[in-house]
């Protein structure tokens, strides 16, 4: 069972991907929803809004921190910012699951959003996938303990640290399953 944090954002497009790769799923809005999960997705959306709702619910923050000790967390866009150790906006919560520094809306406003093909590469996989960058963040710095999972024009757009994966764009909006399969099905 994979949870999708559903405080705000594109949680239903992640649900569609989980269905496509035959993983059970549920929406997560409270700490009780975290019971018996094998992983969690923090979707895209507005990181200030998600932070606002998280901070009214400390038990949910604690529960996600606990879950991260044993289970994989996947964050896309706003989810990547929330998972990073530091971001350029002090109003946004940083769980610190990924030892990286991110900056919000780094490509500019919506008229600068775009569709692109990114290169996913690790020891065994080398694949181009189609994604959307929607008012996307950028990964500015990565610690040595962090693996680079995908790039676009030499820029880092997805990273992996231990079980956890963060991606700055949206494969799920174009029905692309590879990142979810790597994170939750151990695809190699």
């Amino acid at each position, binding site marked *: 069972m994979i949870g999708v944090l559903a405080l705000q954002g594109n949680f239903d497009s992640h649900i569609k991907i989980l269905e496509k790769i035959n993983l059970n799923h549920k929406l997560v809005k409270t700490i009780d929803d975290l019971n018996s999960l094998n992983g969690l997705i923090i979707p895209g959306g*507005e990181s200030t809004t998600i932070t606002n709702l998280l901070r009214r619910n400390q038990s949910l923050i604690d529960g996600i921190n606990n879950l991260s000790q044993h289970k994989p967390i996947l964050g896309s866009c706003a989810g990547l910012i929330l998972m990073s150790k530091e971001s350029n906006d002090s109003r946004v919560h940083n769980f610190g699951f990924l030892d990286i520094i991110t900056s919000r809306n780094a490509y500019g406003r919506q008229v600068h959003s775009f569709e692109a093909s990114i290169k996913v590469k690790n020891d065994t996989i080398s694949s181009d996938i189609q994604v959307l960058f929607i008012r996307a963040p950028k990964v500015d710095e990565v610690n040595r303990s962090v693996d680079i999972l995908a790039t676009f024009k030499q820029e880092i757009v997805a990273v992996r640290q231990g079980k956890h994966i963060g991606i700055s764009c949206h494969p799920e909006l174009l029905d692309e399953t590879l990142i979810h399969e790597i994170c939750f099905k151990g695809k190699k």
Partner: protein
Amino acid sequence: MTKDTFKVKVGLAEMLKGGVIMDVTNLEQAKIAEDAGAVSVMALERIPSDIRKDGGVARMSNPHMIKEIQDNVSIPVMAKCRIGHFAEAQILEALEVDFIDESEVLTMADEYAHVDKHPFKVPFVCGARNLGEALRRINEGAALIRTKGEAGSGNIVEAVRHMKMITSQIIELQDADLSKKAEEFRVPLDLVEEVAQNQKLTVPNFAAGGIATPADASLMMQLGAETVFVGSGIFKSDDPSERAHAIVKAVTHFKSAKDVLTASYDLKDAMKGILMSDIPEDEKFSNRGD
């Protein structure tokens, strides 16, 4: 790399789901909205209830005021153009607003045609009272549909009517002659077929027009809205910041009556509101555009 694919436009609408988009008329209000957890703000000079009261021609807002808000909040900023006023839309695109609302709240610029939204890079949201209207707007290039409701009324009755109308008309497509429906709706058959098959619109479907309380927001979410717009409801109340927080919470936890109760608990008075029977038919915003 293409910047103007339709999916990129719908992508931003997807990001706004499960949230609250708030009307603001100045920077101070925009900051209150952002701090309260709004996913986006709609920058406009006068909120709908004042447009209704003041009368006169309501136009696109002053770009300077929109720019000031853009420069000082981090969430997406939307702005309204008049129905059919593609030059206002071009200006808003040049200003790089994140979404354009081609809105019945402003005075109509063209009584026969809406803006052709396909050539724009910036996505458009349009209001609809029924499925035909929603599909015509999508066919013109809208990336997001909202109920028209009756803006500035503080009365949820029209938003409920429009949401239920769209939902029931989508269900009716299951047993309908789709080519006849396409003709009736004045849209291409393949669009009607896609909606009939998926049993939902091809773009996200939000609620707007008359939402004033956490309970109103929960009601619209339970009726199938994926996000709510709150216009006059917040800044015409006695406690904008608290009310904004409360409505954000009510939208996230709309299925939990206990949470909506907690959100509603300490609020002061909501905006007064207007009965539909007290608005003459030719003064209803929702009758503008078809």
